[in-house]
Each structure stands twice: as C-alpha cells, then as structure tokens.
C-alpha cells in the first residue's frame, strides 16, 4: 500500500507540477535574465550588466515601491481592525447568519474587481450617487474624496476584505470557549482576554490573513489607477509602464524582480510556517 501511495502521489502531482514549471517558474527565470540585460533590448543574447537596477535608485522608482508597501501596510492594519469583530461574529455568534455572510462575501469576489472599483467612482464622484443625491435634496454638496492616497487605501481595504476575513474567522474558531470562560471566571477584563487569550491563540489565522492581504495589496494596480487618478504611482503601475509605453523590458524586469523578492520572500516565509494539513483537513 505504501509503495502504491508513493507512486500514485508522484504521478497525480504531475499535471499541476508541469503547468507550474512551464508557466510559472520558467517565466520567472526569463524575468530574472532580462533584468540583467542592458537597457531597451528585446532579446537575451546580450552581455549582461546591472544598469536596470541602478535606474531603480537614480530615477526614483524606489518611491513607488515605498508607496505601494506603505499603502499595503496601512490597508492590512485597517483590515485587521475592521475584520476582527466580523470574524469573531462568524466564528462564535452568528450561527446560520454566518453562512449568509460567507455566501455574500464570496459572491462579491466573482464580480470583476474593475467593475466594483468603477462602482466606487460612480458612488463617490462629484455628482455621483452620494454627492449628487445630497445636493439635489439639501442643496449642499461636498468635494469628491476621489484621487488621493486615502481613497486608494480605502479601495485596497474594500477589495482585499475577504482575504483577511476568512483566515481570521478560521483562526478565531480555533480559540476554545473554555479558555475564554476560565479567564473571565478568574477576573480577566475584556481587554486582557483579547490580548492574552484570543490574539495569541488565533495567531495562525491572523498571520495568514495579514500576509495574504499585504502581499496582494503590495502588488495591486487597479486601485491606484481607477480610484487614485495619478496622485500616487504604485510599483505594479511602474512595472506595466516600463513594459508597455517605455518599451524597456530590462527595466520592467528589474522592477519586477525587486517586487518579487520582497513579496515572494514574505510569502515563502509565511507559507513555510503554516501546517497545511492542520488548517485544511485532519492531522494525520
């Protein structure tokens, strides 16, 4: 039985492994190679130099990177705060309403991100759903909150909410009720229960949720373009521009590599710490 298991395991992993080797790892190798080519070439048959990386510093691309990382950090922190009560409700309080909430959140994921962000533009713009109606009814309008850093962070929070909510709910479900009850009986305050019992025991969910939303937000592009106008350029936007308008593949590749190393490093670190058998199914 064990021998067949080993053989079947290897065989059945093959289709997915082949797809990932050919269409995930190979493209990454190409990016890495292009990033050390001289500027503005379109083939790998050149003498390598590292000029694209020096451009990153000399032409201020590091600013976009810092903006992207900063906005990702801010949105992750906000998500953690606003998702916690909801995740707590889903795990411990809501009962049947949890299922309704889960379906509502998952369904929203199936609507293309572009359409949802565009909906926020229509909602928040001057003469939009909110301001337009307010002005028609009361005569008082207000300036549109669009096209600024706060609205980009708002967009990131909106789009990545499910990626924080579900792992967090999973994490909170892992906190035993008895432990909380015991702490309360021994006279712990609500704050003490939160910081000393719930947060440490729900840590796996907190880590996975934060990591997912941070990593996805750091590589995001549409929020800063659709909601933010041109106030701040996200690093993913710079990558796209370098490839398309700039026609500079080595620069785009170098920017990608920097993003990949930071995000990939974080993702690998997080993934290596998570026991997938324990989270997804039974522990054997």
């Amino acid at each position, binding site marked *: 039985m064990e021998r067949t298991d*080993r053989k079947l395991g290897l*065989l059945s992993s093959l289709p*997915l492994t082949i797809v990932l080797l050919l269409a995930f790892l190979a493209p990454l190798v190409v990016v890495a190679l292009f990033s050390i080519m001289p500027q503005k070439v379109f083939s790998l048959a050149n003498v390598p130099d590292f000029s694209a990386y020096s451009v990153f510093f000399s032409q201020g691309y590091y600013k976009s990177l810092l903006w992207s990382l900063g906005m990702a950090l801010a949105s992750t922190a906000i998500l953690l705060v606003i998702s916690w009560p909801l995740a707590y409700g889903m795990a411990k309080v809501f009962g049947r309403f949890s299922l309704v909430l889960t379906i509502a959140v998952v369904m929203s994921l199936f609507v293309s*991100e*572009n*359409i949802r962000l*565009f909906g926020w533009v229509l909602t928040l713009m001057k003469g939009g759903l909110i301001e337009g109606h307010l002005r028609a009814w009361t005569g008082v309008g207000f300036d549109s909150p669009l096209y600024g850093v706060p609205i980009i962070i708002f967009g990131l929070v909106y789009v990545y909410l499910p990626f924080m909510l579900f792992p967090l709910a999973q994490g909170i479900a892992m906190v035993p*009720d008895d432990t909380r009850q015991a702490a309360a009986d021994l006279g712990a305050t609500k704050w003490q229960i939160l910081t000393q019992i719930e947060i440490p025991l729900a840590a796996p969910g907190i880590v996975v949720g934060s990591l997912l939303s941070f990593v996805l937000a750091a590589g995001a592009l549409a929020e800063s373009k659709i909601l933010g106008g041109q106030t701040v350029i996200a690093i993913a936007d710079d990558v796209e521009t370098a490839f398309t308008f700039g026609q500079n593949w080595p620069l785009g590749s170098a920017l990608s590599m920097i993003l990949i190393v930071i995000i990939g490093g974080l993702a690998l670190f997080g993934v290596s710490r998570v026991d997938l058998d324990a989270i*997804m199914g039974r522990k054997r």
Partner: protein
Amino acid sequence: MPTSRSTRIALFVYGIFIIAFLYLPLISVGFASISKARYLSFPIKRYSTKWYSDAVESSTVHDLLTTSLSVALLVTVISVVIAFFGALAFARYQWRYRTTFQKLILLPIFFPQTVLGLALLMWFNSIGIIPSWKTAVVAHLVWIAPIATLIVAIRAYSFDPALEEAARDMGANTWTILREITLPLLMPGLVSAALFAFLLSWGNFPLSLFTTGADSTLPEWLYAKMVSGYSPLVPTLGIMSVCGSFLIIMVALSIAWLYRTNKEARAARN
C-alpha cells in the same frame, strides 16, 4: 462565555453594514446602466434601456463575450482535471515530496498577477509563441488550477482511504478505483472547483491584460474604457457580466440541489 445580547445585536448590525458596503458600488453601476444620459450625473433624471439594446446588438460585445467565454470554459475543463489529480497528491497519498508540492502550489496564488502576466508575455515571446486567447488560457491556469486544487483538497481530506483499500482487496485495479470510488466521492468538490474556475477566469483582468494579444476579454475592454474614453456601455456591460455570473451560480446551485434530493429519494426507496 456567552456573548451579551447587546453585543450580539451590534455584531449583527455590523455584519449587515459590511454586506451593504460590499454591494453599494454595484448599486451605483446598476443605476448608471439605466440612465438615458450619455454623461452620467446623479440623481438620474431619465431612465432608459437603450444601452442594453445597444449592447445586445453590438458586434464588439459579441466578440468580447465569445473570447471571455472560450477562455473561461477551457480553463474550467483543464483546471478540474488538474485539480482532481492535484488534490489527491495534496491530501490523499503519502509520498515523498508532498509538503514541497503543497507549498509550491501556494506560490502562484500569493503572487502579484500583473507581474505574472508580464512574465508570461516575455516567456511566450522568448519561445516564439504569439499571444492570443489561447495563451491567456495558460496564464489563467497558473493562478486558477492551484485554487481549484485547494478546493478539491478540502473534500479529499475528508474521505476514508479504507474505501479504496477495500476495492483493491476485491481485485479492482488503480484505474477502476479512481473511476468508480474516488471520482464520485470527490464530485461535490469538483463541481465547486469548476464553478470557482469559471467565475475567476470570467472576471480576471491582470492576467488577461498582457496575455491575450490581439484578442480582448470583457474585463480588459471595461478597464480600457474606464481609464480612457468612457463609454455609456461600461456600466451596462458591467451589470450584464454580473448578472451572468449570478445566473451561473444559481443554475449550479439548483443542479446540485436537484442531484442531492434525487439521490436521497433513491436511497429512501432502497
């Protein structure tokens, strides 16, 4: 520790508030799609279904839908096959590189999709493949096949390997076991994986943007029109796409429900 009544009510209200927050933008898009004016301004003064009839008649729209549908259907079929075997390797069999495999398939999900799309574009270019909707299928697979695998894996964790062993003891070969035992047991997981694969491919933008070449999917067209050259068809097509997704979910859920009641009825008769 029972939660107090007032806290329960507050959490409940908060939950409803979050659902409203998630769907508010779609309400705006919905109103915009039935406004008669070419340039939008709320409150809407005159309603009309003009843009819907325009959309139905437009040949651009037909092309966009055909491309999006072809990509999504092909991605669904291939993902489900890959996910069936992938999930067995992920959850069922004990083999040497299992944990490595489990972690490898998470990486594309955690990866910035814009960068992945561009990397694929350069890769196709290096090996001399001209991008079209078929290369977009490959791009979608990199992201969707792992997600589908995880969904099937949840199901694969919960079935009893003893069933397969019993079949083997009675002389069934590996292929028969897969077809007669494993496949039916994983069916619910495969159906939801198919649903997810289709809808995620249907709505995907960053991977399509760089890998469809001269072809164009619906999310790409919408994005192009949002960033430059607004067209009143944007909200209309947006709503049509959303309704299409919900219709598919409803059809899938009712089929699943019919299948289950039918099975229960048969079980009751025997």
